[in-house]
């Protein structure tokens, strides 16, 4: 559903009156732990990308055909820690969200 600030402006009954609004639903707000990658340690094996249940890891295939891990999409990363668990070189650490509170 799109973002609304007041009960007065949102459609009644929870009706979603535009298609494809699920894209705007940022499940990342559920997160209490945030994955942080140490790019110096990362070997770009893409295990984290493969295992992330929310497709919240960005990556690309470079011109030389090798993969590169680019970081996290925090709009969708729910902080489950799977990536940190599967990383063979422990390049990912899970930090409490409170550390990032402004």
């Amino acid at each position, binding site marked *: *559903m799109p973002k609304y600030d*007041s*009960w007065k402006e*949102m*459609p*009644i*009954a*929870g009706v*979603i*009156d535009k298609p494809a609004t699920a894209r705007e639903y940022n499940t990342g707000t559920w997160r209490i732990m945030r994955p942080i990658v140490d790019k110096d340690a990362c070997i770009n094996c893409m295990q984290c990308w493969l295992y992330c249940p929310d497709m919240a890891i960005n990556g690309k295939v470079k011109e030389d055909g090798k993969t590169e891990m680019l970081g996290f999409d925090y709009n969708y990363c729910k902080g489950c820690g799977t990536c940190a668990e599967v990383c063979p070189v422990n390049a990912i650490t899970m930090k409490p969200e409170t550390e990032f509170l402004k």
Partner: protein
Amino acid sequence: MPTKLAITGAAAVAHAMRQINPDVVAAYPITPQTPIVEYFAQFVADGVVDTVMVPVESEHSAMSAVVGSAAAGARTMTATAANGLALMFEIVYIAASMRLPIVMPIVNRALSGPINIHGDHSDAYAVRDSGWIQLFSENSQEAYDMTIIATKLAEREEVLTPAMVNLDGFITSHGVEGVEILDDEVVREFVGQWEPKYPLLDIDNPITHGPLDLFDYYFEHHRQQQEGLKNAYKALPEVFAEYEKISGRKYDFLDLYRMEDAEYVMVVMNSAASTAKYVVDELREKGIKAGLVKPWVFTPFPKKEILEALDGRKAVMVLDRAMSFGKEAPLYSLVKSALYEAKERPMMGTYVYGLGGRDVTPTMLHVPFEDAIKGELDPNEERYLGLKE
């Protein structure tokens, strides 16, 4: 010209449904609502209505089917009673939260157990917080009128809230009385064409009905439902006035009977109000200033009107046809709360009567008045009329 027919309350409601000519009726027959569905099914079979009748295998399915149908954009009705309503319960709340203006006559009957098929108001009270508008009717004429009124009210853009029309099991549903039926065209014009706000079948404007609504907007949607009922409260006098124009019958939040100078006032809903009016007349003949308040509208509860009607009276006796175990009876607690701001608070008494179809006699209804006249009302003591003590 309106026609006067000698028919049961169930037939009167079925005639209102016939004239409203809903697109879809999905219903399961349950005593004492069965004749409504039977009469209506006959109208469908005879081709006098265009309605698609969906015979379902349970009330849970009936309410689910009408939710689907109303969400699709069809004008939709069903009817039920007691345990049927209980089986619908889950979807009853969903219909209200989806803001689908379904109209549902409820033939009031005891919510078992022990098993009982006769009339009381435990079914209506059980769904009092479900978000539906709840109208009550004393007799067949009122049940007919309220069904038409409910349709007009529920579908108003600013209301969009489903509505229940309550009539007493057997007493009203199966008793034969003279009922004035308006002309078909008059009713048809009154209810007009239903223009759904978010029809699922509008494929040019795709929408989603009934999505997950967690902590982000659930609260706001409930606030909107509250607004729908506030708007229903505002719209009711207008709808009543419009109905009076086509029928000559005047409705309001409250039916005030001999209330001008009344000192001892009974508050009671539905068919027992007829007996109470008879008792009020008897007392008036003896020079006692008795009066009666009968709420036609229970949800949205007409708090302000109750306060206005009862402020400054000597005594108010509220009669409930159901119990709220371990708490004050539902109508009593609402009337009592409405009187919190009274300038001159009346004495109050709470009486439970007529459970499971127990007969309600004039002798019985004299008791609360006698208690009041003797100054023996106790606001904290629930008393029972006609109980084998």
